[in-house]
């Protein structure tokens, strides 16, 4: 796949469904005490992950944030090792040391989810620097939320990417919330105004329209590859669930979260149906996703706990474990 090719809408649906089913299962596993720590779900935001990642090639790199399940799966992270990781097992992508907030996969250029708001931005900038220096033609992308725009390192990263004309795609998932506070009360600027102040070409789109996301991302990635320099894409989207699982969302109007007409999956399904795609094909995306998730969860449940000594040995590359 080269990034310029458009991915078929049915494939985008399959990706979104996989993310959705994986996360809904995680919600259940979390409620049942099978997932330690805390998890942030991207239910309602799958269109962004699916649309953007389908515009990236295997050599392109991706940095993510705390709400990174969808980004990771869309970039191609193995589903079984995804569940193994989040359930804290030895065969997890990160050997059970990171969990939900740190899923990563070097094999598919996934540089990691990240527990520090904003931290993915300079990492993507550095990755883009590597692509530029090595003249690999690859692009680095980074997902971050609207809340992350308040962090100073966002500014430094935009500036550095702009002056060095680095091949980086900044993707802001604007869901209107920073944890329990509406971002409107936290940010004076609009996302695109910030990017544009740094002379970064910026677009803002409906992030719940996966086709629109995909088209915009493809166009921007191809501009980055041909013309050079960073691009910025704001995807307006909806955080359907709480900030993390277990968040009672008392601060939030029930209506806001539940506008089902915004659901990127439902929207694409309706569109496919209207375009004459057979109902069975549409339905199979869901069925297949559930089957894959079932299998992955079964495998993950059977996974062994990590061992402490193995963990100690991975603090450094080549030194002995220390007591």
């Amino acid at each position, binding site marked *: 796949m080269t990034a310029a090719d458009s991915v078929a809408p049915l494939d985008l649906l399959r990706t979104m469904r996989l993310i959705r089913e994986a996360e809904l299962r995680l919600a259940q596993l979390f409620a049942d005490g099978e997932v330690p720590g805390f998890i942030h779900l991207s239910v309602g935001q799958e269109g962004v992950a699916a649309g953007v990642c389908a515009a990236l090639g295997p050599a392109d790199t991706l940095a993510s944030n705390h709400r990174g399940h969808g980004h990771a799966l869309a970039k191609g992270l193995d589903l079984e090792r995804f569940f193994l990781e989040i359930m804290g097992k030895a065969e997890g992508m990160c050997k059970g040391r990171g969990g939900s907030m740190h899923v990563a996969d070097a094999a598919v250029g996934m540089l990691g989810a990240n*527990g*520090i708001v904003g931290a993915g931005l300079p990492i993507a900038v550095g990755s883009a620097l590597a692509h530029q220096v090595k003249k690999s033609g690859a692009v680095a992308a980074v997902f971050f939320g609207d809340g992350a725009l*308040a962090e100073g390192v966002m500014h430094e990263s935009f500036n550095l990417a702009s002056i060095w004309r680095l091949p980086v795609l900044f993707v802001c998932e604007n869901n209107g919330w920073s944890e329990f*506070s509406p971002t409107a009360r936290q940010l004076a600027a609009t996302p695109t105004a910030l990017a544009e102040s740094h002379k970064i070409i910026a677009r803002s789109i409906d992030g719940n329209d996966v086709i629109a996301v995909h088209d915009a991302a493809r166009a921007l990635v191809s501009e980055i590859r041909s013309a050079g320099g960073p691009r910025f894409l704001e995807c307006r989207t909806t955080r359907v669930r709480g900030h993390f699982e277990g968040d009672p969302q008392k601060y939030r109007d029930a209506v806001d979260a539940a506008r089902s007409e915004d659901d990127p999956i439902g929207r694409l399904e309706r569109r496919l149906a209207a375009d004459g795609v057979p109902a069975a094909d549409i339905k199979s995306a869901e069925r297949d996703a559930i089957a894959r998730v079932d299998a992955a969860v079964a495998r993950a449940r059977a996974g062994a706990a*990590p061992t402490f000594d193995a963990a100690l040995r991975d603090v450094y590359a080549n030194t002995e474990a220390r007591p």
Partner: protein
Amino acid sequence: MSEVRFGQAINRALADAMAADESVVLFGEDVAAPGGPFGVTRGLLDRFGAERVRDTPISEAAIVGAAVGAAMSGLKPVVEIMFMDFVTLSMDALVNQAAKARFMFGGQYALPMVVRLPHGGGINAGPQHSQCLEAWLAHVPGLKVVCPATVADAYALTRAAIADPDPVIVVENKSLYAVKGELPESMPNVTIGKADIARPGRDATIVTYGAMRDVSLAAASALAKDGIEAEVVDLRSLQPWDETAVLASLARTHRLVIAHEAVEAFGIGAEIAARMADIGFDELDGPIVRVGAPFMPVPFAKELEARYRPDATRIADAVRRTLA
């Protein structure tokens, strides 16, 4: 006397300080309308209003930097950095500004500000949401660092921190927030820098603080069954720390163990040990043994984190080792 949770005790201390002094203001991420990520600041916005209790953007550098400017201009800001791991983003304001302003400006400015830093593991929050970095702050002249371990101290040290004319870091162990304990109706004033003998004993001294106080007490109970009477000294304040109390205890027991949740290497315990290996050398009848986290990031998986955090067995074993 009432039974409250550790987090509620901090809440009460904040409320009482704000009621007593109009110049006390509160800001941080989600501390106002949402009442704080751990509920510690619940109700304060309603009670004290939107001028004095404010939600900030996700801007850790500006939060502490603004606290510095506010403190230099007549307020007593109390700010929260949601997890101590994120203080990595506030270090310039804390270390180069807050800590040095009094000294560097020749004593012209007081910096009455408080930074609350929830630290520690135990909730499988992983490598970037569990760290104990208090040793960094204790190394910085101009900062004070306290770490309450009991409900009463949570109240008293928070009040003392706010009343203090210097910048004070209040380190709060996240795993303690839900712990219940007695809060006396009227609290004695606590002086920053005074340790508390949590349990007297004659055979060995365990110096500790924060969440490891209870773990050390459990270790002491276990040791008592074998006839070993360990004295548990809760530092309460890490900078300054109560050298006199630790030395006095060592002079009684002649054996020293230091336990904390932070990484052992270059942690708070290193300073206590080093100082006692100097001024307390003649009192020592055995090696100084430290118990802390191993030299690795805080791991996520339940089994890993459980093994990572010091427990009563490891502390008791350390006491046995120095007595051997």
